[in-house]
């Protein structure tokens, strides 16, 4: 049998041409439409492969009249980063959950409050005009975040980059970090620098209880007063504070 007959037999006259890259730049009508094609938890590359080349269309997807559904929040987050990467000027958006997810370049100005802002970002800058929610800059490895304040678990598992918080932070700031720099101009709650393995945390106000709990590397400086049990079960790294509460661990240092 000739190769042509083999192919004819396989396709039985059904010929349809489609090219590998034709998915890029296809018309995407809504976040729901995008989610149908890539699923609700895709990687950034999945979204990038489908995202429209036309900036106006991305902006239409980013600014729906209603808040994105919970299952579409990550898609919205990826879109915000892709739009910021491509934008020659800082991009102003509402601070919805996951805004700036895996941001690589560009600048985002976020207005309002949202959770998971700047999560897994590796470059670029995010300015949050207002208080940020939980998980701000979680797992970031580069770039920078400036925010008014944040809630729990901010800047967790940070590997690089920097963050400046002009107000205070709630509990669990910089948990498990092994890189990056954090400057907090206000005070923070309990367990800041918990399990910290590297990086730098500077707190201008006071720190709550269990500062640097179980930390094994990195540097924490508190210009104000640390709570009780600072440096509890610390294995490495340094903690310096103006004063300490009860049961501070041996080896924590004072500030001149």
């Amino acid at each position, binding site marked *: 049998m*000739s*190769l*042509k007959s*083999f*192919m*004819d*037999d*396989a*396709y039985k006259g*059904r*010929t*349809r*041409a*489609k*090219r*590998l*890259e034709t*998915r890029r730049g296809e018309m995407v009508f809504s976040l729901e439409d995008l989610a149908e094609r*890539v*699923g609700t*938890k*895709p*990687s950034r*590359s*999945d979204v*990038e*492969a489908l995202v429209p080349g036309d900036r106006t269309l991305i902006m239409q997807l980013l600014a729906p009249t209603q808040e994105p559904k919970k299952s579409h929040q990550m898609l919205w987050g990826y879109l915000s980063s892709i739009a910021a990467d491509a934008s020659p000027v800082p991009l102003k958006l509402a601070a919805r959950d996951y805004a700036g997810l895996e941001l690589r370049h560009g600048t985002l100005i976020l207005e309002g409050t949202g959770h998971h802002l700047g999560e897994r970002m590796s470059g670029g800058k995010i300015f949050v005009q207002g208080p940020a929610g939980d998980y701000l800059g979680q797992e970031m490895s580069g770039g920078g975040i400036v925010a008014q304040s944040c809630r729990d678990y901010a800047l967790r598992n940070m590997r690089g980059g920097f963050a400046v918080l002009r107000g205070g932070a709630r509990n669990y700031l910089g948990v498990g970090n092994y890189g990056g720099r954090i400057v907090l101009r206000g005070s923070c709650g309990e367990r800041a620098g918990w399990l910290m393995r590297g990086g730098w945390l500077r707190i201008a106000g006071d720190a709550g209880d269990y500062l640097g709990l179980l930390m094994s590397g990195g540097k924490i400086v508190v210009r104000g007063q640390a709570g009780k049990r600072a440096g509890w079960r610390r294995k490495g790294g340094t903690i310096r504070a103006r004063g300490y509460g009860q049961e501070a661990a041996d080896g924590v240092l004072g500030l001149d």
Partner: protein
Amino acid sequence: MPDPRKKIAALIRSLEDLRLHVGRKDLSVGEENVNAQLYFPLANACLRGRAVLLYGGMGANKTTLVNLLGSSFLALDLDEVENLMVTGHPEQTEEKIIGFLDPRQWSREGSETSVLWTPWARSRWKLINEINRFPSGKQNLFLEILQKRKISYAGQIIEPGDTCYFATMNPEFSATYPMDEALLDRISVCVPAQQPDFLAGLALAEREKSVRELARSLPRFTPQEFDALPGLVASVRLSSRVELAILCLLRDFTLCERAPGYDKTQLSGARPSLGLCPGCHYYNNPESLCWQVDEGLSDRVRQDLRDFCRALAFLLNRDADVDVLRAVAPYVIWHRLTPVRSALERPPYYGARKLAFVSELVEKSINRTLNERSEMNLLFSQAVDGEIDTGKAVQELSAFDDPIARMDFIPALERMR
């Protein structure tokens, strides 16, 4: 001779009715759903010289199921079949596995070297139990046996004839050894053996007699019926669509723009997971398969896919069509590949659901071949058959952004010019 397929159907019913194997129907072939853990060993029993690996935790009915099937197909008692298997542990020696020199020969003058072969070596139903509890040296012994289909010891060779090979394996824990990649490549199919679910547990609780007693009630095959099975399977015809989908599937996994000769199996050291792909045209494109797995696929995979498609179609009494290929291919391929972590670790795979991940890749490749590659494939075939000018075909094919067009078709046509 009655139709052996009817006896196989009776065997499947008996296994369920006697509560000897009650598994969830996790393998979808078109509209039909069957249990993968049962149907792949059955398919292997209808073939010869292929190996099926059952992979799962302790007590998932891997060894017992294979022995029960052996008891039925070889018409032996379960005890006798159990004597045929070898079980892995670090103290197993070649002598215990395949045979040893007959000490009586030293007292006989002028006698030739004789080896006392073990029942396992002589058997045509070879089960290697807990294969990853054999150290790597012993694993190489099985590699040689699967490669040569014969066993040698002290210069003597035994050829047991066409054999069905089975193996079982636990997930990695303290007493296991890593599996040799070359040995894994010779395993035709790897099937996860899952613990019974809620309903299966209830059904198993109804079993009142011991497995040994119940095994005596299973249908038995005559040697003629058992020997006739490979011929019946070979008579199942594979359609051109399936043959084409298999060819493209292999090329989708094997082609790599950066590998010598575009052949990913040539890579050593540099791999997609070790940073080979950034900057490549196909990198991060979810439609391309090449960057998502480290290994290419060998030609053995093609043969295994063809054989198991035929065998499963024979068992289900249906055509060996693309639906059968969609069902079979993930189980033939997944144990031979290492997905890149960034792709496997994202939801819904979470780094743990490798079979599901490979199934998705297989689905993408087959769909692409059937729905999107027709024009380029027809163009290539016309050029090969001399119906159109090869130069013109190369020019037209270069507009197709497809790894097969770029790395297979165009170089082949350029060689023909």
